[in-house]
């Protein structure tokens, strides 16, 4: 990675930390420790399941909220504060600015997820008093969650490159919801005929598929994840993020900033 991208990425990370993004870790810790203590008293035999399900769901939702709400302001805020002009007056290309912002936000989310993962495993140890080999699949679920973040970060940046923060948030969140239903969309396409079938199939491939990246319920039961799925999900998330990022660069490159 060239040094200009690294600088923009590290500044984006620093700015996120300065914006107290990592404060969500406190809420996460309170939520998880509360659940670990409480569930044993109000339910039967699901302490470990709840810690994994709640922990990973919280990691995912906190991260999605962060990626949407920070991602949508990454470009527009710089334009609004007029800091973008200072950056671009230096020998920084527009595509480097977008890529740097993407890596900065992705880095923030990876660090955030890392601390949350420590919390999940800590709570797991608290309720089970030991680790089992099947708990290692939780790491794969966390990896898939990070892949989700990459896609959402790229989408948020894409919308941020041409739209207002409010509309970008609406678009990004809508795509997250639609992406959770993309398998159903494909199912509908199977039932349709003619042009509708092609259209719906096209849309189902265009929107991100988040359902394949969500294996929380499965790993909570200690079910193994196939190497093939890890490989294909990784390839899918990287390609989709790269696609959204390319679109963001294309739009930003042509945008009149005067």
């Amino acid at each position: 990675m060239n040094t200009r991208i690294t600088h923009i990425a590290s500044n984006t990370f620093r700015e996120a930390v300065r914006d107290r993004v990592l404060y969500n870790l406190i809420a996460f810790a309170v939520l998880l420790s509360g659940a670990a203590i409480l569930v044993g008293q109000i339910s039967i035999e699901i302490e470990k399941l709840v810690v994994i399900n709640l922990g990973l769901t919280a990691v995912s939702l906190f991260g999605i909220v962060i990626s949407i709400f920070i991602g949508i302001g990454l470009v527009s805020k710089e334009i609004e504060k007029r800091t973008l002009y200072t950056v671009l007056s230096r020998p920084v290309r527009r595509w480097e600015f977008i890529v740097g912002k993407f890596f900065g936000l992705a880095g923030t989310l990876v660090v955030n997820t890392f601390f949350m993962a420590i919390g999940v495993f800590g709570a797991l140890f608290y309720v089970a008093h030991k680790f089992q080999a099947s708990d290692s699949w939780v790491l794969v679920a966390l990896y898939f969650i990070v892949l989700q973040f990459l896609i959402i970060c790229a989408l948020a940046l894409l919308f941020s490159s041409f739209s207002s923060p409010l509309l970008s948030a609406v678009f990004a969140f809508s795509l997250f919801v639609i992406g959770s239903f993309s398998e159903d969309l494909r199912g509908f396409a199977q039932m349709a005929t003619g042009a509708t079938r092609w259209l719906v199939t096209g849309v189902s491939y265009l929107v991100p598929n988040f359902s394949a990246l969500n294996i929380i319920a499965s790993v909570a039961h200690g079910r193994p994840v196939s190497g093939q799925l890890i490989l294909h999900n990784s390839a899918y998330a990287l390609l989709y993020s790269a696609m959204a990022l390319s679109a963001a660069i294309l739009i930003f490159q042509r945008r009149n900033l005067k």
Partner: protein
Amino acid sequence: MSHPRQVTLAASLLLGACLLGSAFSLRRVDQLRTDPASEDLLFFRSPKLLQRMSLGYDGLLADVYWTRTVQYFGARHAAHASHYRQLAPLLAITTTLDPHLMVAYEFGANFLSPQPPYGAGMPDDAVKLVEFGIENNPDNWRLYYDLGFIYYMDMKDYQRAAEAFARGAKVPNAHPVLKILAAQMAQHAGDTQMARALWTTTYQSTEDKQIRANAMAHLRALRVADDVTALEDLVAQYGQKTGQLPKSLADVVAVKLLPGIPLDPTGHPYKLTGSGRIEVEVPDDIPFLEKGAPPGYKPPPPQNLESLPR
């Protein structure tokens, strides 16, 4: 005191007072709203709709619904409720959201199947629940065992019980007892011996304290049933021998039909009534009694089986 400090102090006092005041108001509101129907409210009855609305986080939602099921059953059970209308829908939602949540099938069937006051008295729903579990977890022998158990204990359908045990015996790594239970069913259906074999298997095949305590309580009730049958036979023999009923079990011991006065599983001696019936001293300490309780006896509200005297 400086002005900013005065403001801080006043705002802090106001904050604390308002917090206390709002908590007090909320308590008053709770006292005024005594509508019991709200307890039974199920906003979404379609498991599929809930699954879609969970946006892929169905595992956590299943845990929430399982907890809700436990709370619903526990509250109604403790109140000696006459109906459990939401129990089957709650379990259907829980298991649709997470079809691999085994605890929901095992405990859920145990909530649904037994007759009140020990359960909801809905064995048909319990069968549906466990069949759904088998459909989604066909390699889990425990579910076939639970199914056979419901057919045997609560529906007295010995043919179907035998079929369920036989199906379970074919599952890889099935507990060997399933084959034995399927084979013995034809010969011993309806015997306490068969019931004992089932409860013993339940006790031995689980680590769960509550399931073990429940199995132990049933085994004790079965032992009492066997003891009462045997003692009433001896009382009849005494009557044939002497031409009159004994006044107490000491009379039966005196004619050497018994070596001593036998004790029930809680350590109390069995007692003989004037009509020749055998009863336990403290029936409340022995749940699930089918024999040995006074006529018209009503079991007390459900208790923690783990805390019963051993």
